[in-house]
């Protein structure tokens, strides 16, 4: 069940180029069901829309959840200025995440691009806990944008690619994938639309899960702002990213 609460900012730090990590304390963590779910944040009361940010980690003991976000526009720029101790109006947890309970594979590949990396972290931890082997491929634009490499490394092998080759191997995450052939049975991906499309095409022999972004309105399934078309023949014809997603099984929606 989604709740709305004022969560306290417990920590807030720059972890890479324009990329911040924030931990928030409240009741919300106990409501999180799956990795890949998101929180919908009203950054300033004068904003008209909330901003969706993926849950990157959950700590039930301390009652905190972690998010990572990149400063892109007005809202995220304002969020970057919030001091520790202040409260944020958070609605969540929203959507359907990665259905780890269903995963029967024993070796998982995680493919994350840019600010799509965060939700894969909580996923990796959960997979690891289930005894599933995790290999992670992370793509960033350049060396300064890289974050969470070490965190993923504690959970399995990590390969990093940067577009300009300033860190790790040069190129896109899809350039790495062929070399991993035979090392996984299923995959999980999150990142920009072009990357998801390329990944799902490269890995079209596999079933996997993709987390998709779109501009949200309500974030709760009521406004139809966030629909993505389903393949021909689907009874409903569409899916809502905020409610049915943001995570979809490959083939469930048209990218």
């Amino acid at each position: 069940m989604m709740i709305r609460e004022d969560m306290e900012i417990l920590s807030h730090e720059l972890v890479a180029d324009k990329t911040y990590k924030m931990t928030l304390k409240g009741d919300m963590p106990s409501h999180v069901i799956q990795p890949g779910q998101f929180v919908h944040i009203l950054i300033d009361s004068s904003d008209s829309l909330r901003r969706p940010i993926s849950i990157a980690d959950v700590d039930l003991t301390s009652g905190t959840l972690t998010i990572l976000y990149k400063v892109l526009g007005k809202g995220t720029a304002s969020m970057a200025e919030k001091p520790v101790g202040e409260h944020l109006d958070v609605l969540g947890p929203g959507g359907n995440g990665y259905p780890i309970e269903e995963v029967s594979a024993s070796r998982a590949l995680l493919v994350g691009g840019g600010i799509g990396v965060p939700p894969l972290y909580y996923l990796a931890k959960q997979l690891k806990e289930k005894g599933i082997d995790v290999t992670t491929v992370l793509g960033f634009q350049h060396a300064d944008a890289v974050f969470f490499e070490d965190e993923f490394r504690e959970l399995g092998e990590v390969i990093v690619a940067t577009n300009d080759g300033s860190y790790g191997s040069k190129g896109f995450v899809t350039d790495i994938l062929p070399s991993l052939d035979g090392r996984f049975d299923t995959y999980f991906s999150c990142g920009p639309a072009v990357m998801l499309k390329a990944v799902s095409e490269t890995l079209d022999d596999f079933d996997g899960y993709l987390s998709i972004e779109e501009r949200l309105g309500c974030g709760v399934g009521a406004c139809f702002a966030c629909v993505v078309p389903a393949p021909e023949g689907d009874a409903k014809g569409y899916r809502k990213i905020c409610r049915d997603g943001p995570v979809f099984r490959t083939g469930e929606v048209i990218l």
Partner: protein
Amino acid sequence: MTAMQVSLPGLELKNPIMPASGCFGFGKEFSDFYDLSLLGAIIIKAATGNTRYGNPTPRVAETSSGMLNAIGLQNPGVDRIIQEELPFLSEFDTPVIANVAGSTVKEYVEVAGKISQISHVRALELNISCPNVKEGGVQFGTDPELAAEVTRQVKQVSKVPVYVKLSPNVTDIVSMAKAVEEAGADGLSMINTLTGMRLDLDRKQPIIANQTGGLSGPAIKPIAIRMIYQVYQEVDVPIIGMGGVETTDDVVEYLLAGASAVAIGSANFKNPFICKELIEELPAAMDRYGFTTIEEMIGGAHR
């Protein structure tokens, strides 16, 4: 009769607060947040004759004190709405107002005829003002004769009172209101969104895939208040007011301007509890401004 009650054609409202069409789906999602029986009424998302898939995404963008949307009337069509969506709302002790849209007068009539037969649908809201679809919708809302024609024909088939939802994208709102009143409208609903646009400066293209979208939110409230104030003086049917309502002060302002009830749209996105909170806080606001009943407040600025 309690202090919060309002009687309108077809609608006995326990309070004057209801969610606006398109901002509350068919209620299901919000029933997770609070008991929908608290609401004065529920205006459901637009129904058309057949399934519509709406516009490409992005469909929303934020603006100063407002937002743009171009959903494009996505809905499963009137038959499936009746079968799949409306039964859920019969569980609540709250009248349903069905928002009816179409590309042709025939489609409006077909949808109205079907949906007005459902027992908990107590009124129709004729959406002649949707700016986000290529055909139908807004041209009915900008031409008084077309507006009167669709109203007249829908009135002939509807089993329940018909509220016509006016578009603010017109030179003369009063003549639109009078035209539909004369054609038999039982009430008015004002306002729908104003047509707007925002550009993505990096892509150098409109943010909204449909290019234009409907502007809602507090930004448009002064326009809505002006239109309701003007129309209230010239028509005898009641008005459901909307546009940027976020606080009980906004509710009071709409009632004083001439609205008999108030619908809340985009504010549900900021705060899914908004309708419930406004209902709870309204008695205090009435007190603050020296009123003891809602009925007293309606049109209060005209005395």
